[in-house]
């Protein structure tokens, strides 16, 4: 079950990123015809990010301690001290933007240039932050594997 949680966390992050791209494209082509679609897409972003937060929070606060010890004893201790510590707090930026996105999308982005720019900016920032966080997660994951090898631990895969 813990493996499912650990893999579902980045999966919902990626789904949130993809939904943000969807919002960006809909906003780029904003019209009266796609108003409701933008709002649906914005709510999908929020839902995915909230689920990613819950799953990642469980992983970070409950499951991560043994992996942290392995990383710190391995060749890449900075993967925890810098990458994981930055990632864990950086996540709140796209989370806040994801909470804001459906609120911004309540404005008529087909008629208001300002609302359209804000929705596109928020969606783009979620994508960029999300990709950085996904990459950071991959570095942390690799650092755990490197720690296992470095410490001669086998069978942990």
């Amino acid at each position, binding site marked *: 079950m813990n493996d499912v949680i650990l893999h579902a966390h980045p999966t919902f992050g990626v789904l949130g990123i993809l939904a943000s791209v969807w919002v960006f494209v809909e906003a780029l082509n904003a019209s009266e015809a796609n108003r409701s679609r933008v709002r649906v897409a914005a709510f999908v972003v929020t839902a995915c990010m909230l689920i990613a937060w819950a799953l990642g*929070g469980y992983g970070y606060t409950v499951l991560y301690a043994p992996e942290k010890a392995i990383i710190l004893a391995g060749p890449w201790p900075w993967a925890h001290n810098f990458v994981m510590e930055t990632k864990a707090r950086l996540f709140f930026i796209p989370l806040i933007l994801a909470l804001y996105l459906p609120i911004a999308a309540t404005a008529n982005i087909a008629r208001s240039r300002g609302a*359209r720019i804000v929705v596109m900016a928020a969606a783009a920032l979620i994508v960029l932050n999300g990709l950085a966080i996904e990459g950071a997660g991959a570095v942390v994951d690799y650092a755990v594997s490197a720690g296992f090898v470095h410490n001669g631990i086998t069978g942990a895969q």
Partner: protein
Amino acid sequence: MSAVPPVDAGAETNDALKGPAAGFGLAAVIAILFNTALAWAENVDEPLNAYMASLSGDPWRTHGFAAVAVFIVLGYFFTSRGFRIDGSRLAALLVAASIVAGGGLALWLVLI
């Protein structure tokens, strides 16, 4: 004869944002910066870190709830005050806050 094109009723009307889109937008800017400031404070102030841990069992958990609470409370506050802002200005603030907050987090964790 007329050189002025007819006004399209469906065309964009203005750049100004009002209501929740404006109020919560400014709240998002502040909450993003608050997130980084709180991370700095947690790292230098051990009693604060311990207090945050005591509230929810883990300082990171409290950190997240605090950032979201700042966003929601300030969002309602600014909206109730009738805050208005140009959309392009708000977008620029969101981008600037994200760059400053993200860069500030990374730089801080490199330095400590």
